[in-house]
């Protein structure tokens, strides 16, 4: 059964409105669900803040013994930590749970039910849940970035800020595409969830300055799993470290490739899907 397409007679504004209504309902669901476990919700925010503080203290300790990593100064690296945390947390808010749960949907046969819904199945799987804690954590990242910006005496133009937000969105799109792609492996093996979490661990690389890396490692994490692009490029735009606009084009190009690839694999997988229950 192919992934269903929007109703043929529907005009663009109409289907857009319909999907927005559905997404609003999903948001409402998520809020109700989170508020059912308030203490847990708050504790998870504490955990995330603690790990963010931990990364910051690592860099402060390192910079108590050096002035530069490559050409990166202390507050530029703090800006990078903030930027990558911002991207990671927004990704968590919108997509993380949804991607990791795909294997569960397949294993339990709930996917069958979603395939029957009169909406695009990939839309439904990708946007099912919103993790509200991610927005709180993203806000803490913004606070750190503003502080670092002050220390650097940056006065970003509106164009730069808008550019950062756009590039950050492109970075999130890359993470989403790759993780969804890996989650699609669950159509063939129950081990996929481990692979998806393995990928999530690679986010650790995204918050390190790209200049430190060389050789094969740099090539792999730029052009295969573009960890060294997703946070570095948007932050370099803000702190005026971009060597050429080419870096932004590479980020955008990688996003398009990843998205196309994940859509291709998804369609192929669904076409070969034969339910878990029957």
């Amino acid at each position, binding site marked *: 059964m192919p992934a269903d397409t929007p109703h043929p007679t529907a005009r663009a504004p109409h289907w857009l409105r319909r999907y927005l209504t559905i997404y609003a309902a999903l948001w409402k669901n998520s809020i109700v669900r989170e508020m059912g476990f308030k203490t847990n919700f708050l504790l998870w925010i*504490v955990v995330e803040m603690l790990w963010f503080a*931990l990364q910051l203290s690592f860099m402060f300790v390192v910079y108590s013994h050096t002035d530069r990593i490559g050409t990166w100064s202390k507050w530029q690296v703090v800006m990078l930590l903030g930027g990558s945390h911002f991207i990671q947390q927004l990704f968590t808010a919108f997509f993380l749970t949804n991607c990791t749960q795909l294997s569960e949907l397949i294993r339990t046969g709930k996917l069958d039910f979603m395939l029957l819904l009169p909406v695009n199945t990939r839309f439904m799987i990708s946007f099912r849940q919103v993790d509200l804690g991610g927005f709180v954590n993203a806000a803490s990242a913004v606070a750190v970035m503003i502080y670092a910006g002050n220390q650097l005496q940056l006065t970003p133009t509106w164009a730069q800020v808008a550019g950062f937000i756009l590039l950050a969105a492109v970075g999130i799109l890359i993470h989403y595409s790759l993780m969804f792609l890996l989650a699609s492996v669950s159509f063939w093996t129950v081990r996929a969830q481990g692979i998806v979490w393995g990928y999530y661990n690679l986010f650790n690389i995204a918050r390190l300055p790209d200049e430190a890396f060389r050789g094969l490692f740099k090539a792999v994490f730029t052009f295969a799993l573009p960890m060294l692009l997703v946070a570095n490029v948007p932050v370099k735009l803000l702190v005026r470290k971009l060597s050429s606009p080419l870096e932004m084009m590479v980020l955008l190009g990688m996003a398009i490739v990843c998205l196309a690839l994940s859509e291709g694999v998804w369609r192929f997988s669904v076409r070969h899907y034969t339910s878990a229950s029957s």
Partner: protein
Amino acid sequence: MTHSFAVVAMKKYWHVINIGIQNTLVYRVNFLFRAVFALIPLAAILFLWRAIYAGKESGVEVAGYTLAQMISYYLLVTIVDALTAVNEDDWQIASDIKDGNISQFLLKPIDYLTYRLCLFGTGRLIYTAIAVVPVTLFILQQREFFVAPPDWGTFGWFLVSTAMTALLQFFMSYTMAMLAFWVLEVSTFIFILFAFEYIAGGHLFPLNILPPMLAQVLYYTPFPYQMFFPVSIYLGQTSGPALWEGLGIQAFWVIATYGLARFFWSRGIRKYSAVGG
């Protein structure tokens, strides 16, 4: 008589170890993935330190570490981590309590803590056996930066301390998992403790590059003895009286956390029985 009791007990837990080995072998592919994936952030942090040293004159030390010593530090952390880290033991203990699986242990002549310790030991054994291939290859690739311990005696104390590290890791996680008797969702607490172990234990950076005051305070907490201490013995940084003092503090924490583990188990069981009727 006591002799034969000991033999019976040995036999009993030998069975547990056997079952543990068979159960963990199921996850061998999983372990291999994990060991390989763990090398990626390790490589990343080594790149970062190389870039820092590259910005200085050659042969210069950063906080008393040459580049080779710094790289050796992280490689040793990887080895000690493979040998001692608690993998999923705490989650499993917590879910045993939550799902009521511990009831059967209350009826059987088997001690739950010893049982879990056997499983932890076998888990580490198998993980190490599997991780040894990728980790050795990685170290060989970095061999020009890998320093040997000053002498065999030092290496011996490193092994003793690593064994105590494993026990300390296990008893702390076990105590933490006892929270499941009182709290429904223990994962957040486990992650909070893990964050402290990660930074104050020396996973992220050697603790002696911290300001001396802060490092001194940390030496009296259990965290450095969960990772940093054995590594510093290997690197020859802790010797003489400091070695005996450190081993003493480490032994103290092992015994203390063992006591806490026993204490919270007995308190928990009292509450558990009450709820179960």
